[in-house]
């Protein structure tokens, strides 16, 4: 049997006295889409950021395709190329055109030649419907366009999985749809995805599994049909009643 894409065991993370993650266990399998929901401050984003070591876990282990990235000798940079990350604030590089945003890591990290990097960038811009903005600078794009370009940038590294950290939370409401469409298509193509989100409609429709987190713990998880409709825990029920 192959290793799960992500396997986390008793993950703890503290910022000083603040105990943000208090023992997380989870597995995400290849091709699976897992949405993480929960109130703000529940540790969802921190969990996601631990998966590619943007945050260093305080204790616990994280295996990416069987490789322990919490091992001090692990080559985190190499593992990160297999994990695409999409941020709430897009974090496009403002001094580079959309094309260069998509090619710079391909060339500097993967060592791809310019022509190949460009070809891959074009394929991915086509995928997110941004090919006509290939030479634009980020400052000239709308939020939705920036986020789609950021997704294409992550995809251009040919990652095995994608992490989305509240990808639509910084967008104007009318721009949320275009980003969710891209993510939906990606899920349809079988991409392994872990998505921190407040978009319940998206989670219900696309997720294979939803995790509800509160106060640094996974309160419960299950398929959307069960978790959203018939949650087992009182806390889940209260959270859902507030946002649905």
């Amino acid at each position, binding site marked *: 049997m192959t290793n799960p894409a992500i396997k986390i065991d008793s993950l703890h993370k503290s910022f000083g006295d603040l105990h943000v993650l208090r023992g997380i266990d989870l597995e995400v399998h290849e091709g699976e889409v897992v949405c993480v929901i929960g109130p703000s401050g529940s540790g969802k984003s921190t969990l996601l950021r631990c998966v590619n070591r*943007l945050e260093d876990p305080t204790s616990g282990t994280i295996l990416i395709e069987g490789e322990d990235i919490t091992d001090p000798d692990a080559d985190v*940079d190499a593992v990160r190329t297999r994990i695409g990350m999409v*941020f709430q604030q897009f*974090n496009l590089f403002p001094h580079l055109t959309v094309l260069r945003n998509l090619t*710079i*890591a391909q060339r*500097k990290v993967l060592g791809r030649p310019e022509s190949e990097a460009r070809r891959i960038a074009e394929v991915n811009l086509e995928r997110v419907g941004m090919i006509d903005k290939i030479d634009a600078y980020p400052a000239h794009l709308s939020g939705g366009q920036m986020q789609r370009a950021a997704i294409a940038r992550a995809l251009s590294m040919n990652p095995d999985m994608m992490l989305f950290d509240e990808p639509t939370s910084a967008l104007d409401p009318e721009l949320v749809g275009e980003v969710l469409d891209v993510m939906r298509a990606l899920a349809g193509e079988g991409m392994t995805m872990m998505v921190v989100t407040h978009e319940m409609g998206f989670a219900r429709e696309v997720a294979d599994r939803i995790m509800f987190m509160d106060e640094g713990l996974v309160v419960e998880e299950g398929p959307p049909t069960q978790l959203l409709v018939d949650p087992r825990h009182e806390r889940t029920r209260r959270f859902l009643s507030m946002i649905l």
Partner: protein
Amino acid sequence: MPASPRQRQRRLRISLYAVLGLLAVAAVFVADWERIRFNFLRWDTFLEMFPQVISQAAVNTLVYTLIAFGVGIVLALILAFMRLAPVAPLRWISTVYIEALRSVPALVTILLVAYGIPIAFQWRIPGGLYGIAAIALGGVAGAYMAETIRAGIEAVPRGQREAARSLGMRPSQAMWWIILPQAFRIIVPPLTNEFVLLIKDTSLLYVAGSTPITRELTSFGRAQAQTSRNATPYIVAALAYVVITIPLTWLVRRLERRNARSR
């Protein structure tokens, strides 16, 4: 009837103009214009200064500035990285250096380099005035610019580094390809300002002594003033500084406006 605010403002403006007018009239009648002209604006002295004031003095001023700026910016980058280093002693060394050279007058630093070092070590700085400009002025400029560069690096949003790292870039790659290009856009206006200050600080090199070939504007003006026994050369030197620095300060304003727009 009391005056309205508008009337009061009008009266104030009129009286300010009146004072200015009186001062101007007094200046015209009281000042000895012939004497001023003779001492500060003598045509023959003026002509005697050409072409050396341009071909030697102004060129030397710019050469010293460029040498000091070149040394300064490399030093500043090193100091800035040291201040951001994870090793504490590197941060301390950098901080001590920066604070020391910013608190000591540049003139004292030049004297120490030009006369202190040769006395102490029986060793002269190679390159004469060029070497002194590189070490003393470059050393001072490095201290000032280090703080500017550090602030520029820290002004780049954290998410930029995170995005770069999440694409698999090593810290040095993220710094070189993502952080520094953005930091430099932020710091080009203050660095240009630093360059302007440096142009003027090269005048302090006159205390290190100079030969006719190595004279910068101030030393040149001073030498000419002594031979011609009037102050016209200082005026010419001053004008030369103005001609060099005004376009640069204009450029700084343009760059600042451009940066303000692109945010």
